[in-house]
């Protein structure tokens, strides 16, 4: 998947005009088209930080994926470091494995970070008792993020 997107990016950069496929234009690349590891969120994880977005003007935390603040559309938005604490809102348990290094059963959770945004994440294998409503903490280890019971 990653290799494919890099190939697509190179293909698009090779074209002179703005490309509809990945929206790489004359003024550089859009965030969406960056190879995954260059995305600020992944760069943050690499440095051991859980990043989220905030508006520079109204200082409101914004959902992941936002490219502007809906209240101050002319302002800039910035990545900030989260304390990594939050509450599980929903949990899904996979009973089938889709890739070798992720054997079933495993849990995916939606966590409402204390700063506001909702973040998808994997639940630590030893956090089996953590259910919706439970407090969790982000644990980052070698670019990998899991949530553990707080």
């Amino acid at each position: 998947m990653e290799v494919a997107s890099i190939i697509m990016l190179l293909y698009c950069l090779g074209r002179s005009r703005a490309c509809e496929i990945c929206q790489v234009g004359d003024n550089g690349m859009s965030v969406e088209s960056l190879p995954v590891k260059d995305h600020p969120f992944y760069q943050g994880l690499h440095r051991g930080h859980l990043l989220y977005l905030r508006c520079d003007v109204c200082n409101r935390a914004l959902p992941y994926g936002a490219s502007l603040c809906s209240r101050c559309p002319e302002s800039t938005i910035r990545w900030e470091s989260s304390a990594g604490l939050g509450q599980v809102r929903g949990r899904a348990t996979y009973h089938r494995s889709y890739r070798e290094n992720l054997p079933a059963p495993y849990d995916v959770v939606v966590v409402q970070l204390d700063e506001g945004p909702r973040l998808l994440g994997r639940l630590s294998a030893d956090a089996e008792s953590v259910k919706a409503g439970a407090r969790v903490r982000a644990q980052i280890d070698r670019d990998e993020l899991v949530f553990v019971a707080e």
Partner: protein
Amino acid sequence: MVKRASAKSAIVGLGFSELSRKSIGSARKLAADAVRDAMVDANLRPCDVDGLLINRSPLVDPASMPLALQDDLQLANLRLLSSIEGQGSSAVQMVQYATGAIRAGMARTVVCVFADTPLQSQGGGQAFAAPLAISGIPDWEAQCGLYGAPGAYALAADEYLSYYGLDRDCLGAVAMSDREWAVRNPQAFLRKPLDLAQYQASPWVVEPFRVLDCAYPVNGAVAVVVTSSRRAPNIAERPAYVHGMGQGHAGSAAQAEAHDGLPPLGAGLAGRIACDMAGVAPKDISACQFYEAFSITTLLVLEANGFCEPGAAGDFVKAGETSPGGRLPCNTGGGHLSGYYLQGMTPLAEALIQVRRQGGERQLDDVALQLVTGNGGRLDYHAALLLGSEPRL
């Protein structure tokens, strides 16, 4: 008091390809079969059709359902031709755009078609295993192991059930209600009676979903013919009149700030706009045909449309209100869970069958006003239609 207006358009033809769990040809071929069937149903020739709208599955290559479907069907005089992409809301959207075009004078007789072939020789699971992008972070779903639409909907289901402290049998109640209808529908694929013990014995897919909480995919195509409400009685014996239309797209439901414990759904907005257009309230709706690829959707959409208080839809379904004999029959052909999964066409086709009084054992007495919904993404993109048996409400 809103004035009740006359119908905006009418659906005068319904056509099916073969529906099968086996490989029965390409989506393009099946689409042509369904369109031909719909034209025969409406007693129209290709030269009578001047609009074609196409809906392919969002999961497939666009080239599998090209605009050149026009040439397969020898539609030489089109004044309207487009592919509509609103994910699971597309089928309802096609009828809406056809209605708009007809009322604006752009076209008179518009065919809308959907086709999909998710089941190939390697089985159906692969087609639905791709991660659904709900996180806002590129490729993050795969990193987290959130593969397939079932996982994304399972998170919504667990959040809903946990917030209101409901048990998982609420989901089972939806599966059982659908099955009760499917038992009465010869076109449905899962027709054996289903009780709670059998539901609870169904294997997990992604907890809280069991296999029986998920849509039953088939290969096939469905087409409908839309025309003006004025012309409709000359074409069809029992046209289905379009009284209300609405869409609601509230932004990513997975990331939006929760209100009342739950993310906002565009479904409520879509339904409200449709009701306002028709000059009716939810209490005037006699039956619902929901896009419910997963059992949870029926509960959420019942509440979003004001049929139940927040958190009360599970009890409503458990009490049999959506089942045969209930106060608000829902998914009367068995829906996506027990009927067949052809995305937005499953609920639309069933509503038409009911208006035409071709429902056999499952035929409803009251078909004055049905709500038909579509939803796509992870509960992100919503569209609604209000269909009635009479040109005036």
